[in-house]
């Protein structure tokens, strides 16, 4: 195993809450389209940073919460967050080696997967979707990863090797 990072417990809790609140806040239309997929980003971040603490179940549960808040079909966001988190956890060691800008680029396909799953389930269940705006979120989310990184890494303490 590589080195273990430690973050304060409250930070995980607060960041998840903040992600939900920021997702729910009403924005003017042009800003709403650019709103990053915050809950997904937070889920990926903690999956990478604290895998012993934040596993697939938590990611899945955050997705379910998102479904209830959004009024989408139960399980839609759950799957959409679960799969990218699983892939991220598989790529964990590689991602840790990457500089920030490469991490951002790696996030593009992950967020795209998220959007695609949402889009796909929307299509199957015959719910109207605004396709064009959905894809912009991919870029804004990837860009927001760097903001998240700068916000959260200062709290990191690297455990001494045993």
């Amino acid at each position, binding site marked *: 195993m590589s080195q273990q990072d430690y973050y304060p417990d409250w930070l995980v809790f607060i960041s998840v*809450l903040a992600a*939900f*609140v*920021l*997702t*729910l*806040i*009403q*924005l*003017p239309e042009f800003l709403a389209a650019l709103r990053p997929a915050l809950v997904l980003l937070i889920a990926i971040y903690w999956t990478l940073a604290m895998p012993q603490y934040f*596993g*697939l*179940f938590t990611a*899945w549960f955050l*997705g*379910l*919460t998102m479904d*209830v*808040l959004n009024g989408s*079909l*139960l*399980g*839609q966001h*759950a*799957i959409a967050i*679960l*799969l990218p988190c*699983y892939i991220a*956890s*598989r790529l964990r060691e590689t991602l840790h080696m990457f500089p920030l800008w490469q991490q951002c680029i790696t996030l593009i396909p992950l967020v795209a997967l998220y959007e695609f799953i949402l889009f796909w*389930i929307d299509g199957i*269940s015959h719910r109207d979707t605004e396709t064009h705006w959905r894809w912009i979120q991919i870029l804004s989310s990837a860009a927001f990863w760097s903001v998240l990184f700068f916000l959260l890494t200062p709290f990191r303490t690297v455990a001494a090797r045993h």
Partner: protein
Amino acid sequence: MSRFRDATPLFARRISPTLKLGLFLALSLALLFADHQTTVLKPVRAAYATMLRPLEWVAEWPSELSSVGSYFASRSTLAEENERLQKEHLLLMARVQRLAALESENMRIRALLQSSKRLSEEVLIAEIQETSNDPYRHYLRLNKGSLDGIYEGQPLIDAHGILGQVTAVSMLGSEAIMITDADHSIPVEINRNGLRTIAQGQGSDRLRLPYLPINADVKEGDLIVSSGLGGRYPPGYPVGVVSEVRRYPGEEFLEIYATPEAHIQHGREVLLVKQPPKISSSVAQSQERAP
């Protein structure tokens, strides 16, 4: 004791992440299916949503403090808007003054009307819950039933005219047939000259007035009102407007069509008119169910 605790288990207790992924995926798909096809999950969702309500309160905060839009509104546009609103306000105030005069006039005329009318009708508002999906069956389901005093055969009107009558009553709901249903006829008269006839539903959006002789005085645009014969419908309510009169030389009867006054396809509320039955219902039944 501690020896056992430290020993690594022979079989790994931890489920592999891939298996976990599969499990959650299957679970999610089951949830998706259940949520899309059934209503089983509704209470679960409602309960969880109630628990998440505080989160939404927090999120509503900023938009309550100040709407984001007004941040970007400049002073000049605000001033412009203010001026426009002031003008509008003045205009509306002037109109309201006239409204007051009209209202009092209306009250006086209404009072006159009331005194001359033999029976005043009591009205109950009901909400349309459902309309029939079949385009040729014109039925409504209403949210008022026998508990609210609805009875079978009760006439149904909206703000513009007669809509239909109640055909089936349960305790908390009722079903009503509309005048445009092919199985429905209503005794009417031409408002202009009192000519009596029957308006039959066609299963489309218009009514047919049969049995009027070729020399009858009917013109396009004539208002048709209920005649009150048969005792089912109160007299004098608008039913429709004559939209088409065809005279075929050699035929004995005119072919007349009318469009209903009531907004058959629109609206969510209907009025149920309560009136004392005048004639035994069997007579009314045979009158209205005429072929």
